[in-house]
């Protein structure tokens, strides 16, 4: 995502009438520029961002809902759908009330302010670059929705519903919004030069690490290891993954915040990386286990989409393919080997795919970034320092997210409890927690 200059938010005439008028005058008087001026609405950009926002929402509902819903057991299908759907509603409200302000209000290097709570000052003519601030805010809202929804994959089958709601609310305020501010809101990671086009660190590493911590704090599912938990419907999972893939164009190409060449290149490398990763996971699995599985193919595609997310506006097609192929292999390792090595029960591989894919993608962005594409050079253009900057960004995000998530989960565990009782878990969350079944068959 383009670095967001908080001054542009404040050019809302309602908040700073003088500055708004001046900015508008400057824009109108700038001679001979064919490009849209900052602060002047560009209808092409706005049309694309309205569309991209809907596409990112499509990733969560119904994309992630179906992807995760298909991967759980039949007795927990509805609970899994409901978790993602409820998070969609809850995160939107939390973002409106305080999240957006903490992420994008001008504050210090670590956190925004409280000045934009309840979207105070957002008027119909408030601008953010060349698009209305309302569009920018809603676009960002869909990111704040999908990030906690991704975490549900790690604690699937065993989290209390109330604890899940409380965790999501506090996590957006204490973890998501600050990290979003660090990278995109004028905070220190952006200032350090960390490249994260569409949310490799903010969304995927963040969700993956939080998922890993949640899986460890909650502990394994009952009878994990002695019983098997095959996905109850790979059909739903494939449909969900396909919707994720399509929606990802809004995620990555939308992060240009404009309908321009950067958006186009982001779209192209997104497709290339997803394809490369799907094929690399498929062929590795075929080679190592004798069969190319459908679940492997879609898992690879999602891994590639995750990995290209930070890189999308910075790398070219060749870099996109390399990131795809490498991330497919890395995520295969993350979901198959890493999990067994450390014996944690990350139910649907939120860390194995989003965490590992996000880390690989963030670091490889520092390798394959091209000056001519996104204005930043990576290792292949001789700038080894960018790799170190990326690693720093990854390490800081992981450390903060892990510590804050751990404390948050422990506080909830001590107050209302995190995990459902054994009977509930055995019966299944659908009937025990929601009083209904996914299927009447």
């Amino acid at each position, binding site marked *: 995502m383009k670095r967001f200059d908080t001054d542009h938010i404040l050019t809302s005439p309602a908040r700073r009438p003088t500055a708004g008028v001046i900015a508008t005058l400057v824009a109108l008087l700038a001679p001979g520029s064919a490009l849209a001026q900052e602060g002047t609405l560009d209808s092409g950009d706005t049309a694309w961002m309205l569309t991209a926002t809907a596409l990112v929402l499509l990733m969560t509902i119904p994309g992630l809902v179906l992807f995760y819903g298909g991967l759980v057991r039949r007795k927990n299908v509805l609970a899994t759908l409901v978790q993602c759907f409820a998070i969609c509603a809850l995160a939107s409200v939390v973002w409106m009330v305080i999240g957006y302000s903490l992420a994008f209000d001008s504050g210090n290097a670590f956190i925004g302010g409280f000045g934009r709570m309840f979207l105070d000052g957002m008027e119909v003519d408030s601008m953010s670059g060349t698009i209305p601030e309302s569009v920018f805010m809603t676009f960002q809202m869909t990111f704040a929705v999908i990030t906690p929804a991704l975490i549900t994959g790690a604690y699937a089958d065993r989290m209390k519903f109330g604890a899940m709601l409380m965790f999501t609310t506090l996590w957006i305020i204490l973890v998501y919004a600050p990290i979003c501010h660090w990278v995109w809101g004028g905070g220190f990671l952006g200032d350090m030069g960390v490249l994260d086009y569409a949310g490799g660190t903010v969304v995927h590493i963040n969700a993956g690490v939080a998922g890993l911590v949640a899986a460890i704090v909650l502990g394994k599912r009952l009878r994990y290891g002695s019983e098997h938990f*095959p996905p109850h419907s790979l059909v739903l999972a494939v449909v969900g993954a396909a919707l994720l893939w399509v929606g990802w164009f809004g995620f990555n190409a939308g992060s240009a915040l404009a309908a321009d060449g950067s958006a186009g290149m982001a779209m192209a490398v997104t497709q290339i990386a997803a394809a490369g990763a799907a094929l690399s996971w498929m062929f590795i699995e075929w080679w190592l286990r004798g069969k190319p599985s459908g*679940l492997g193919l879609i898992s690879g595609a999602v891994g590639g989409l995750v990995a290209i997310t930070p890189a999308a506006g910075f790398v070219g097609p060749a870099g996109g393919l390399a990131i795809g192929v490498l991330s497919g292999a890395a995520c295969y390792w993350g979901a198959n080997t890493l999990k*067994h090595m450390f014996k944690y029960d990350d139910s649907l591989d939120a860390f194995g795919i989003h965490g590992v894919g996000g880390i690989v993608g963030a670091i490889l962005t520092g390798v394959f970034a091209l000056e001519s594409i996104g204005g930043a050079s990576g290792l292949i253009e001789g700038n080894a320092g960018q790799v170190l900057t990326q690693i720093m960004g990854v390490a800081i995000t992981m450390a903060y997210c892990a510590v804050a998530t751990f404390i948050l989960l422990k506080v909830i565990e001590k107050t209302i409890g995190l995990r459902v009782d054994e009977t509930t878990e055995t019966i299944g969350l659908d009937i025990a927690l929601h009083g209904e079944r996914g299927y009447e068959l």
Partner: protein
Amino acid sequence: MKYVIAIIHPHKLEDVRDALIALDIEALAVVEVRRFGSEEEHTEFYRADEYKVGFMPKTKIEFAVSDELADQAIDSLQKAATTGEIGDGRVYVLELAKTMQIKSGKVDADVASL
């Protein structure tokens, strides 16, 4: 009168039905079942989760047949259902006391089919 229960491969259902129709056995009940047999297993894997599955999808068919036709029916069924491999299934033959047609309430002590 005999009551025949057979567990067969799902993909052999049409062959078996045709073989039974050829003997004028024209009514049978069919259920999708899972059968556990320790000799027959296959491996499934879902990402890291790889395991042997002992419950195999099978089709269970049931029908009544007169004593005269019983041996011939079982023989035809076996020929139609076999692939010669493990997992072809099994036929169970039970004595059948009587049947009643629900529509008419007519009790029949010797029908060829149910």
